[in-house]
């Protein structure tokens, strides 16, 4: 497979005549009023999706979006503009607009444009799902439909979709670096409706990653995803009201990583700490979690939904240890925060599209495994909650309070998993909950690729992972006193 940066450079050169001479000319305009650095971010993205309803294809959609975002940075301040046109004149005007963050006038320094290579790609992009015939994708949807309906007679409806994205990006920076990436992404969603009399329960399941159609053989199958949605919908039919109050909670391996994402991940994004608005501000080197807790953000995991070869500022993706044995070790940085703190960028500068500005963001965030077994952890709980899968979460960065909605949960009684529960919410405070991690198991697992992270209105794909963990007390928002 050729180098993704070389492929991206060739793509923009052949399709839009964007070459190092053009990027250098635009960067000179961007820096014509001053500024510490500038960068151009070219993006060409194709998304297609097929939606499935009533046992047939409902709609086929396809979106092409393209444009360039131009940023001029002066200290912590940015000037930003974008255009959907790759005509030189339109791009030059955008560069002039971005330059307005600076008030000076100067002859911009010469830019020594140097194309860089990525090296080893963390994902294969030479056989994207977008290139597969529609019939192959429709066949996958049919398989999901059959599997869900045969799972249980109460499954009366199955909605599904298959979506793919292929994104070419090219970053040209005023330090001369030119680098790019080709990022494939697929996503398969199913939603199953179980109906018994008047009682309806809907459950969703999804998965994907930076892969092609081989995902459906190597990682999971449409049948497995559909049966999982059906199983959860049926399970909810018999689930009991959840207890309310503070209880021990066992977080199952895999999807529970969403807790880390909300409870600590966002608070460790360096923009909040640069501004002093996070409850982790100024706490590097201090204990912020139980000594059992080591948290890593790693953008280099093969084919994972959250992985990137380079971030959207052209820095290589890395593995960053955020918390090591309970001690806060570092933040996630983009260029601006790295300069502010005098550290190296951590490859965490991400944006949703060329229209959006860059922020430090997570990639794949997870807790490293410990020594316990999941069985021993469950056996150790007299009365508590076993939380398995989630529909989402949210955090308040300033005070660390978070919530997340648990879609599959059970009561633990006398060391045994018993009744399925419905409407379970977990609510707590990030540092507080991490200090109450009393056991960590050896069964670490990365969740299947279904998570999307939102920040300031921008969505980016992420991964989460976790071993089975016991938290000695979390507030459970149930209805039963």
């Amino acid at each position, binding site marked *: 497979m050729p180098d993704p940066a070389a492929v991206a450079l060739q793509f923009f050169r052949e399709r839009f005549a964007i070459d190092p001479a053009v990027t250098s000319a635009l960067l000179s305009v961007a820096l014509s009023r001053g500024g510490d650095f500038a960068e151009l971010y070219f993006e060409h993205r194709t*998304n297609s999706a*097929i939606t499935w*309803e009533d046992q047939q*294809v409902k*709609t*086929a*959609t*396809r*979106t*092409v*979006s*393209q444009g360039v975002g131009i940023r001029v940075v002066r200290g*912590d*301040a*940015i*000037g*930003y*503009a*974008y*255009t*959907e046109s790759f005509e030189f004149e339109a791009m030059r005007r955008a560069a002039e*607009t971005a330059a307005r963050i600076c008030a000076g006038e100067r002859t911009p320094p010469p830019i020594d444009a140097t194309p860089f290579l990525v090296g080893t790609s963390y994902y294969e992009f030479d056989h994207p799902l977008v290139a597969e015939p*529609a019939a192959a994708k429709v066949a996958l949807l049919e398989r999901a439909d059959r599997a869900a309906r045969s799972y249980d007679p109460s499954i009366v409806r199955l909605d599904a979709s298959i979506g793919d994205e292929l994104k070419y990006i090219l970053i040209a920076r005023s330090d001369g670096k030119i680098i790019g990436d080709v990022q494939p992404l697929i996503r398969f969603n199913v939603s199953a*409706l179980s109906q018994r009399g008047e009682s*309806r*329960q*809907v459950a969703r399941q999804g998965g994907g990653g930076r892969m092609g159609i081989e995902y459906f053989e190597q990682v999971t199958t449409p049948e497995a995803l559909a049966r999982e949605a059906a199983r959860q919908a049926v399970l909810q039919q018999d689930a009991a009201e959840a207890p*309310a*109050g*503070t209880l021990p909670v066992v977080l199952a391996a895999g999807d529970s990583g969403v807790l880390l994402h909300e409870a600590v991940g966002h608070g460790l994004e360096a923009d909040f700490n640069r*501004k*002093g*608005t*996070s*409850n982790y*501000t100024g706490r590097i080197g201090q204990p912020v979690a139980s000594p059992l807790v080591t948290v890593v953000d790693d953008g280099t995991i093969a084919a994972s939904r959250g992985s990137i070869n380079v971030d959207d500022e052209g820095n290589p993706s890395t593995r960053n240890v955020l918390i090591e044995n309970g001690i806060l070790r570092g933040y996630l940085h983009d260029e601006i925060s790295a300069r502010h703190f005098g550290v190296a960028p951590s490859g965490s500068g991400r944006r949703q599209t060329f229209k959006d*500005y860059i922020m430090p963001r997570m990639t794949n965030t997870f807790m490293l495994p410990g020594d316990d077994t999941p069985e021993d952890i469950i056996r150790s709980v007299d009365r508590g909650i076993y939380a398995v899968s989630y*529909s*989402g*979460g*949210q955090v*308040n960065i*300033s*005070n660390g*309070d*978070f*919530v*997340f*909605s648990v879609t599959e949960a059970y009561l633990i009684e006398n060391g045994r998993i018993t009744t399925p529960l*419905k*409407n379970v*919410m977990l*609510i707590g*405070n990030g540092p507080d909950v991490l200090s109450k991690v009393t056991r960590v198991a050896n069964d670490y697992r990365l969740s299947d690729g279904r998570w999307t992270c939102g920040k300031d209105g921008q969505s980016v794909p992420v991964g989460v992972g976790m071993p089975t963990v016991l938290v000695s007390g979390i*507030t*459970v*928002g*149930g209805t*039963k*006193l």
Partner: protein
Amino acid sequence: MTARAAEGISALDLARRAVQLARRAGAEQCDAIVVAGSESTVAVRLGEVEKLIEAGSLGLGLRVIIGGRTAVCSTSDLSPAALEQFAAETVELAAISAPDEFAGLPDPSLFGRPADAAALGLYDERIEALSTDEKIRLALAAEAAALASDPRITNTDGASLSTHVGEVALVNSLGFEGSYPATSISLAVEAIADDAEGKKRNGYWFSAERSLSRLVDPEEVGRTAARRAVDQLGARKPATTRVPVVFEPMMAVSLLRHLAGCATGDALYRGATFLAGREGQPLASPLVTIVDDPRLPGRFGTRPFDGEGVATRRNVLVETGTFRGFLFDCYTARRLGRTTTGSASRSLESAPSPSASNLVLQPGTLTPAEILAGIPEGLYVTALMGAGFNPATGDYSRGAAGFWIENGQLAYPVTEVNISGNLAAMLADIDAVGSDLTWFGSAAAPTVRIREMTVSGR
């Protein structure tokens, strides 16, 4: 008036051209939507400009229907050659879909009158004329007011002022043609206060309007953000209990949005709403009347025609407690044997689907103080977190923060609590509706009180 879509071509012309090209390529029916706009944002923090963003954008979405088969495509590459290929590819893509007897454009007798836009207060030339310096001045004034209003405000996450000037055009192959310009302006501030144990308390406030004259005074936005941060200092976690819960207007709006999301033809035919089979039946307390009104001048959900070109109209969702009915677009209406309520929403990338426009919970007669007065112990909610609402069952469970109520007064701030119940039961249990109707974007509500909910805490 507004930004021209492309060199010499209006948004409406571009939509016309896409419809012509799609027809020529074999589309039986089609419609095209063009969204053109220019946006600007200035962000300031601690008295300095932090971000200046300015850009124009233009995109086109095309839906084609051939023998009941639908495809929807969108693009931002609008050169004549690219557009022709795009239209042909969209027509080809439709072959993947199965025939659906309910797919189709609206009957022309339902078309809206684009000229109505002029009276709907969607466009303010003063927003387009606002200079960058003036935008910076407004944002700085809001942040400065937040910092000056209380010594305990030690930091901010800045203030930002954004404007948008845009135009929407919709053309379909049955002869509908309409476009209208729209503007918006928003000002937001986040103030930060330091609390014990390194915790910060943040207070966020904003004003968002379609005209400059309606924008709340920047100093007031800043002071409100500061007050909301300071109010949360020393917040505690209360004990788990069942008590009356009061929602301030901004939080009451979230209840409206949950309900409206369940009151669509889309949710109904998918079997994914607890409101199925409840039309004409008592749902909420008799104090509750909820209206969805896209004809209210100058609001964010206001529009002369919907995403399919159908004339918009006022729809009553709940009338003195009785559930009156669902919101439909053409597809869901045909499928369920109803008529469209002019509620189609439309983005460039997706097919139309029904959703609310401007949601209003009609005000009652009590002041907020009168609503609190009768409560010996309860929760006053000023923040909600998480997505703990199940549309299929109405089960409701969300993280909350606010104040503990003691003897009819706000006694102390609380945080890290969860409130839970079922939306149907919560609506039926509303025992007080305030007179303080307040708008937030495209929805408005007064203070409401729910007789009792489970509050989880310590």
